[in-house]
Every structure is written in C-alpha cells, then in structure tokens.
C-alpha cells in the first residue's frame, strides 16, 4: 500500500467522522460547524482524487453556502417560536444545550 492510499483512506476516515458528528451532536451550532468541516474535508478529498475544479465548487457550496442556509433557517425558526410562544424559551434552551 503506497502512501497515497494512506492519505486517501485518512481523508475518508475524517469525512466519515465528521458525517457521524453532524448526526450525533446535540448542539445545533456544533451540527452546522460539523457540516462545514465535512464540506472542507470533502474538498480536500476531491483534490487528492484529482478533481480541483470540483473542489472549488465544493468549497463554495459545502463549506460556506450550505451552513449559511442552515443558519438562516435556524434563526428564522427560533424567531418564529419566540413570536408564537408555543414552545417555551426554557425548553428551547434545553434543546440547544
């Protein structure tokens, strides 16, 4: 096994670990940050596999645009919940902690 495949498998392991973190973390900020880390590591994997143009697109979409979309959605949902008062602020804080 050459060192190139060691690098490839390590990138895959980091990708898998961050993907598990996206699902398993209980903190919403931490989830979105793990998603951003997944996009960055996936861009690195694209470069290692020899597709630098695809890596450029992945940096923009996976590391910046997708987390920004999720942050906007989370902010809007929290503002909505606070307006309607359906879900208590105490419960939302427990969810985020």
């Amino acid at each position: 096994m050459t060192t190139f495949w060691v690098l490839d498998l390590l990138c895959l392991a980091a990708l898998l670990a961050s993907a598990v973190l996206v699902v398993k973390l209980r903190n919403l900020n931490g989830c979105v940050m793990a998603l951003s880390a997944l996009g960055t590591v996936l861009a690195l994997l694209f470069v290692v596999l020899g597709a630098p143009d695809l890596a450029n697109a992945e940096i923009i979409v996976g590391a910046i645009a997708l987390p920004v979309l999720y942050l906007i959605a989370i902010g809007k949902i929290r503002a909505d919940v606070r307006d309607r008062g359906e879900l208590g602020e105490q419960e939302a804080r427990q969810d985020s902690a």
Partner: protein
Amino acid sequence: MKDVYIAVCIAEVAIIGLLLVRLARGPSVSDRIVALNTISIQCALAVLFFAAFADRSFYLDVGLWMVSFSYLGALVWARYLERGLL
C-alpha cells in the same frame, strides 16, 4: 523529497482528526469556531503539500480559495452569534 511532502500531508489530515474531537466536545462555541477555522487552514496546507507532491501547480488554486473562504466563514459565524444572519 516527495516522501516528505506526502508525509506532511498525511500528518495534516491526522491533525484534522484531533480537531474534529475538539469540535465534537468543545464546551463553548468559541472552541468550536477555532477548531473549524483550524480545520479549514489545515486542509489548505494539506492541499498545498499535495500540490507539491503531485507536481501540479493548478492544485494551488484550490488552497487559495479554501483560505479566503475560511475567512468568510469566520465572518459569517461572528455575525450569526452577534445578532443572527437576517
């Protein structure tokens, strides 16, 4: 010399693993933000060393994009934690 380049690249990816641990169990949001930015910078360094290993200067472009947009990501997180994005 190329063995040194790919060894440094592998070490950067191992550091990314350690930073993912910090991102997972960081007690405060500042720890997570610092871990995320450091992951991005280590990825850019790994891309630079892989470009030196593969002897292709076109790969350097990706590292440039990664560094500049990691700065933009830090800016987005700062604004979100200050008062929300919208």
